[in-house]
């Protein structure tokens, strides 16, 4: 009988190998259809009307002129906002749906919204603007520790608001048909998407909402719910009696569809001459728009510093709202902590690697970090390249190394999966999960094929519909653990049901059988075997369908999944001190994530994270005009992402030894994106000899720091 337990490393045929992603070819060929590509017969286009004021009272909305325009088929307005405040530029107040995108755009311009402008506040740099009672944390005796410390190192650091900038913007196509609402959203959570908001908007009960998302172009934490765009398109589709497409334009995507909160901090570190950390005091502030909070996991990872004091102040700003952004709060906490620590190493004139090897002893996973630091150092050629802060060589281009460590949970989410074995030998797995571009489809296929002893091509994976068994949303690095476990359980049960049918014909008990290489065979007498096809034919006319259910707590106890990873990243950068231009030579990422299903897509996750990390370290920031409250770079021209030429050489090393493998599956989406900002900023400081305190490390900031430090 087959057991669900993960197969031993030497028994695996697919799991842990480097396997191409299943949907690579259709994406490369442009055949994969994203929400933006869905066109339904008779479909209308919707456009939004948004507040031009950062703060104002909404007095009235009049859609009548827009509604009477030829080609306009439906209008929507947010009466619940009347007499209330709009709180940021881009806040949606109305919408129109029309025969063409152009008509819709023109009609949106004819909606008359009246406002009484009010004073707004868009500044997130000044902690005195915080109106909340600060959050505080206090451990040990900080004052005493500072009094006794050999060195006290003070610095001010900052990481700005960045946006998710999903290449596929937010939105959906909505269609009411036969009392059902069909939606094609770009979402990270297929099974839970059909919520009360679109049910109310369309008047269709939740169990009659059909969600379909086969491909999606990035969410990073911002696409769990239908959002206002989902509600509006559903309402417009109902009103018009025709399908409606509502996808955000690029400017609104950047202004209102989510962002990562900023974090600025004054940090003081106390340490002994030998690098022992004794105290850390932090005042941190930042904005998440009108809601949200401030990142507070400081000190980050190195969290057993005995004496710690933290004050966190949230600044409310009239800006678009924050949303979970890959590893919420971690990149900020990491950047602030690791910058202050590297500055401490520099003040002690201590080798940074030696310093961090010591510092990670104050973390929950000292051994893992120590091992990873050594591997990363080898991979980047640390010994050959390292120098104390400030590249001593002449010339205008300075080179430096920097490092950072990070952590994340990543326990698999609840997931249900149906695996069906058909009499013709075909196999399919169905689950209401989604592939954000991570390789989820591929991972499920690997698990099911491995379980059934079949080649990858023999299994069909059906995901992306809420009609399938419920599976969790893809956030917090929870998917791989969830879907691998549920599909493993389902496939194992289905296989055992097949064994039960086949065993009598083979003259053995079911528990004497195994599936391997396209055969079902007797474990201790492999010659007694029957091909998969012939075995399935014995099913007659009845398929086998079994449901696998992942209950995270249970699966964790049984060792299928686990949580808590560590990663180390190092950066090798060059900085031209005459131009302030910082470039990446190389990034090295060393990462553990328990047992790996597909080494290739796992590595791809890390490559992608490094690319995203280079972007927010060197280029990305949401720039706001304080006077108008407008985001000045809500485009992809001055909101810069890294291109291929900008990312340097990327090296990824996954920790795959047995000790890691034995932990079971852990998610990987978040952790590798946490460290790049810190590692790159530390490398720049190591190169030029002074700290460039604020990300992104653009020429203006680098030059200012060099001038302040008397370097140029």
């Amino acid at each position, binding site marked *: 009988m087959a057991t669900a337990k993960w197969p031993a490393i030497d028994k695996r045929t697919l799991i842990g190998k480097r396997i191409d992603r299943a949907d690579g070819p259709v994406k490369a060929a442009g055949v994969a259809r994203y929400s933006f590509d869905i066109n339904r017969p008779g479909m209308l286009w919707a456009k939004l009307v948004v507040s031009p004021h950062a703060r104002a009272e909404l007095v009235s909305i009049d859609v009548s002129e827009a509604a009477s325009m030829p080609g306009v088929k439906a209008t929507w307005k947010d009466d619940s906002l009347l007499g209330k405040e709009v709180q940021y530029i881009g806040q949606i107040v109305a919408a129109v749906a029309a025969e063409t995108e152009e008509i819709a755009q023109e009609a949106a311009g004819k909606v008359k919204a009246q406002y009484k402008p009010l004073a707004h506040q868009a500044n997130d740099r000044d902690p005195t603007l915080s109106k909340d009672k600060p959050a505080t944390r206090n451990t040990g005796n900080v004052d005493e520790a500072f009094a006794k410390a050999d060195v006290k190192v003070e610095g001010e650091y900052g990481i700005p608001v960045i946006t998710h900038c999903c290449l596929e913007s937010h939105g959906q196509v909505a269609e009411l048909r036969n009392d059902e609402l069909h939606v094609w959203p770009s979402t990270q959570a297929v099974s839970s998407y059909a919520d009360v908001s679109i049910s109310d908007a369309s008047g269709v009960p939740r169990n009659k909402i059909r969600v379909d998302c086969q491909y999606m172009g990035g969410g990073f934490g911002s696409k769990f719910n239908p959002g206002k765009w989902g509600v509006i398109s559903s309402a417009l589709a109902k009103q018009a009696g025709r399908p409606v497409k509502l996808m955000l334009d690029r400017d609104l995507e950047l202004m209102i569809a989510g962002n990562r909160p900023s974090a600025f901090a004054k940090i003081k570190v106390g340490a002994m001459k030998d690098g022992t950390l004794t105290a850390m005091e932090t005042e941190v502030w930042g904005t998440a728009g009108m809601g949200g909070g401030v990142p507070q996991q400081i000190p980050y990872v190195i969290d057993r510093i005995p004496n710690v004091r933290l004050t966190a102040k949230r600044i409310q700003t009239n800006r678009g709202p924050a949303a979970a952004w890959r590893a919420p709060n971690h990149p900020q906490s990491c950047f602030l902590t690791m910058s202050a620590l590297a500055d401490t190493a520099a003040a002690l004139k201590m080798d940074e690697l030696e310093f961090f090897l010591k510092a990670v002893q104050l973390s929950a996973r000292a051994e893992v970090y120590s091992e990873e630091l050594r591997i990363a150092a080898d991979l980047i050629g640390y010994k050959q390249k390292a120098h104390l802060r400030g590249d001593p060589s002449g010339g205008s281009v300075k080179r430096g190394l920097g490092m950072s460590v990070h952590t994340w949970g990543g326990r698999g989410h609840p997931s249900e999966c149906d695996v069906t074995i058909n009499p013709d030998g075909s196999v399919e797995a169905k689950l209401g999960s989604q592939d954000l571009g991570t390789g989820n489809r591929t991972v499920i296929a690997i698990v099911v094929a491995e379980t059934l002893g079949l080649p990858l091509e023999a299994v069909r994976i059906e995901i992306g519909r809420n009609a399938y068994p419920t599976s969790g949303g893809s956030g917090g690095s929870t998917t791989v653990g969830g879907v691998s476990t549920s599909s493993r359980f389902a496939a194992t049960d289905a296989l055992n049901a097949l064994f039960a049918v086949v065993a009598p014909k083979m003259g053995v008990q079911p528990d004497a059988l195994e599936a391997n290489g396209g055969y079902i065979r007797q474990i201790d007498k492999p010659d007694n075997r029957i091909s998969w096809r012939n075995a399935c034919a014995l099913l007659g006319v009845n398929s086998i369908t079994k449901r696998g259910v992942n209950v995270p707590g249970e699966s964790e106890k049984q060792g299928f999944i686990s949580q808590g990873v560590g990663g180390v990243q190092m950066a090798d950068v060059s900085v031209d001190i005459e131009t302030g231009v910082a470039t990446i030579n190389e990034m090295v990422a060393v990462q553990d994530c328990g047992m790996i299903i597909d080494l290739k897509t796992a590595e791809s996750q890390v490559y992608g994270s490094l690319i995203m990390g280079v972007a927010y370290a060197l280029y990305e920031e949401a720039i706001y005009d304080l006077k108008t409250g407008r985001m000045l770079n809500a485009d992809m021209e001055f909101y810069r992402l890294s291109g291929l*030429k900008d990312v340097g050489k990327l090296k990824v090393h996954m920790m795959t030894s047995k000790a890691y493998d034995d932990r079971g599956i852990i998610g990987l989406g978040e952790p590798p994106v946490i460290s790049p900002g810190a590692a790159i900023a530390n490398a720049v400081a190591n190169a030029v000899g002074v700290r460039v305190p604020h990300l992104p490390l653009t020429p203006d900031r680098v030059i200012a720091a060099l001038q302040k430090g008397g370097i140029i």
Partner: protein
Amino acid sequence: MKSFEYAIPSSLEEASSLLAQSWGETEILAGGTDLVTSLKQQVTAPKRVVSLRNISSLKGITVQRQSVRIGAMTTLADLTANSAVKEHFPALVKAVQGIGSQQIISAGTVGGDLCQRPRCWYYRNGFGLFGKQGDTSLVLEGDNRYHAIFGNEGPAYFVSASSLGPALIALGATLKISGTKGKTREVAAREFFRTPKSESERETVLRPNEILFEITIPIRGLKNATYEVRHRQGLDWPYVTATVSFALKGGTASNASVVLGHVAPVPWPSAAASKALNGARIDASLAAKCGQAATEGAKPLSGNAYKLQLVKTAVKRAVLDAAAAA
């Protein structure tokens, strides 16, 4: 984008006659890489768009003994592929390559690059060419990190976006302009750009119904080079650029021209830097001196003083690159 009438004339004369007398009523369409964005963002909403696509005489490069003539509709890609251009005007080739996007270089035209509108984010966000709200200059009070450090007495604080402009000025190019009824006129590249004083003006000497149709660059055997300070290596804008050209005999420079880009509402010839070059022996310290001279008279705004350092470096490196070129 607002609806507009679309015209595709086949001669310059016809094209001019389709253009209105005042700016904004009609717009000329070349490769569209700038104009279409402006139409979509409703930075401009013309009643008619006049495409130059079907005027065959505007395309192509003619190489003569003493000059190279470039039709305004020649794409940036074709410009840099031309062997005479590559041989004589490396400064120009470098300026185009910096744009860094194959799509823009393939679709964008030489005329379009010279006539493109400023990228000032206040302008592009609907606050008008000068970025004002009421009487307040949002540029002066707000984020002006990418704005002008020269020629910024106002009301214009944006920087000229064209990378070709500084190169063509340094190379002594002449631009040919056609008006109504087939009338043509010539202006030196240096005179082509101007700083608008009111919202009803634009950034060149073109009248609303005039078309830039040809660019002539003399072949004078000048050493020339462009240095651009860019951060991202793909499609992006430079922070500062410098083009230099000079004759070099026995290590001594003459006839020098130094023109800065992205520092002023127009390409910015630096008389002080040119002067520092003329009659001097070119070496690293002279190049640095020249870079320093190029910053003379700069008046940074609240957030762009860092550009002074970039000017120094760009000029210094352009001088050394030009001298080192074969």
